[in-house]
């Protein structure tokens, strides 16, 4: 136990507690002073931070359902196929996850370029004129969202395929004998059994999406005009560019609270995630 517990306490548990403590303090590298709720007051009256929470919320509200529904739809089709095709699809959709969001962001920086980016030229075929997706206030957040979706379907698809394959054969046979069609089988048999798995994926994707950083740092740096500013990007800017560690800690604690509440709500509504 000890080789785990010591680093666990120092590098995992303590930082969580320290984040909460620092959010009530003015934090320097040497000294700390208690300032009560001043950091929170500062966060909640700061326009950029509020914008960051709003943007992160918009991302979660769009990306989490889209990601879940898309990957569930793909998984539902893939489990009907032969073993060989199943493993092709599992690999194909997981490869971008292996590549990491840093590498994919770099590629999208090129693909989304308004002059020679392939994405723009593709849309040009349909008569859409050059659009600077990442450079305009009203499109940048949607471009970020698109890039996120293009990198993150892998894990939910793998999990859903495994979940659907774990539905007992006898249950499916019984449904078939009772004359169930494929949509009926999905609606009344497979998907109800998948509720805990869907709940798990909702929680995981919510936590993942609310933590967006690499895509923003590499594609937009929060701009233009804060339109892609996210909470984690703000934490990074406040703490390490502006040196306001207390303010950034308050942001962190608010992010933690919101994600935990979202996780609890999702798990409660969709059934418990079972751990053993």
């Amino acid at each position, binding site marked *: 136990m000890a080789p785990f517990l010591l680093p666990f306490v120092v590098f995992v548990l303590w*930082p969580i507690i320290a984040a909460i403590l620092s959010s009530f303090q003015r934090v320097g590298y040497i000294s700390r002073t208690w300032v009560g709720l001043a950091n929170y007051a500062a966060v909640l009256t700061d326009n950029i931070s509020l914008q960051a929470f709003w943007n992160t919320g918009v991302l979660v509200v769009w990306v989490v359902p889209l990601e879940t529904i898309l990957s569930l739809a793909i998984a539902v089709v893939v*489990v*009907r196929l032969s073993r060989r095709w199943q493993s092709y699809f599992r*690999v*194909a959709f997981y490869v971008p996850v292996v590549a990491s969001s840093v590498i994919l962001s770099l590629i999208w*920086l090129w693909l989304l370029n308004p002059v020679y980016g392939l994405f723009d030229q593709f849309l040009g075929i349909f008569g859409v004129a050059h659009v600077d997706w990442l450079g305009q206030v009203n499109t940048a957040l949607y471009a970020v969202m698109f890039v996120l979706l293009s990198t993150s379907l892998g894990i939910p698809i793998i*999990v859903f395929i495994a979940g659907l394959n774990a539905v007992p054969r006898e249950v499916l046979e019984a449904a078939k004998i009772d004359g169930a069609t494929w949509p009926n089988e999905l609606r009344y048999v497979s998907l109800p059994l998948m509720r805990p798995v869907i709940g798990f994926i909702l929680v995981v994707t919510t936590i993942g999406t609310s933590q967006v950083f690499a895509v923003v740092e590499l594609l937009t740096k929060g701009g233009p005009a804060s339109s892609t500013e996210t909470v984690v990007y703000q934490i*990074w800017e406040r703490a*390490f560019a502006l040196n306001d560690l207390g303010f950034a800690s308050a942001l962190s604690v608010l992010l933690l609270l919101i994600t935990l509440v979202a996780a609890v709500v999702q798990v409660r509504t969709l059934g418990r995630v079972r751990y053993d």
Partner: protein
Amino acid sequence: MTRFRSGRAAVAILSSIVFVLSILYLFPLYWMVVGSFTTVAGTLKVPPDFFPNPVVLGNYGSLLNDSGIVTWFKNSVVVGCLSTILAVGTSASAGYALGMMRFPGSNVIFGGVLLTMLVPSAVTVIPLFLVMHALGWVDSYQGIIAPGIAYAFGVFLVRQFTHTLPTEIFDSARVDGAGEVRLFWSIVVPLLRPALAAVGIFAFFSSWNDFLWQLVVINSDSLKTLPVGLASLVFSSGATNNTLIPLAEVMAGATIAFVPMLIAFLLLQRQFLDGVSAGAVNGI
């Protein structure tokens, strides 16, 4: 898989759509490789060539000469290997202890481990940085590696896996006079191998692909890892989203970072994909 009569035609159509989606999904990575073998002028060409014409190696050459990619690669390998060894070690011992032994506080510890898995890692970046500052570990290998040592997901995975092990073996080994340490090394570790392989793969990949923490903790050029180095390649050009970015070189660098992981993934895909679904799917 049971087949439903009404499903056949629908499955054929839908699976074609999914197939097209999968190709689109992989396309950016293909485009990265194409870009890495294209001349700088070629990456700016409208309309573009879908296969590099001519195929050039110049981007790789200038990348090797002008940037620190060799150092970045070396650092990523060193950090990745050390994090993996440490994470596998702590996950094996803690996961086994939590799964097979009953001791006071074991449930509390496991609950704590599960809870920390729900905490976004961005939340602890600042206090972690202050801890490293206090230890004098900012901008050092120890600083990059330390947060990954106590790998909660690994502990969770190993603990779940211990429930599939036959307890009789342990009892008979104890009867034969094996001490707990001996038991752990010669019986538990070999039995845990599938779970430890998954933990190791994930630990290595999360270290190889980590961005936020490495960006925070690394200052000097000589410690930069691949993600941090590649990002600096973009930003050192002083611009985002315009023609000043050395695209062809960036694509070559991204390809160098990606290919070893792709090979590892294709070789180890079973352990990988089973590991991903292990935590989520049980008890249906």
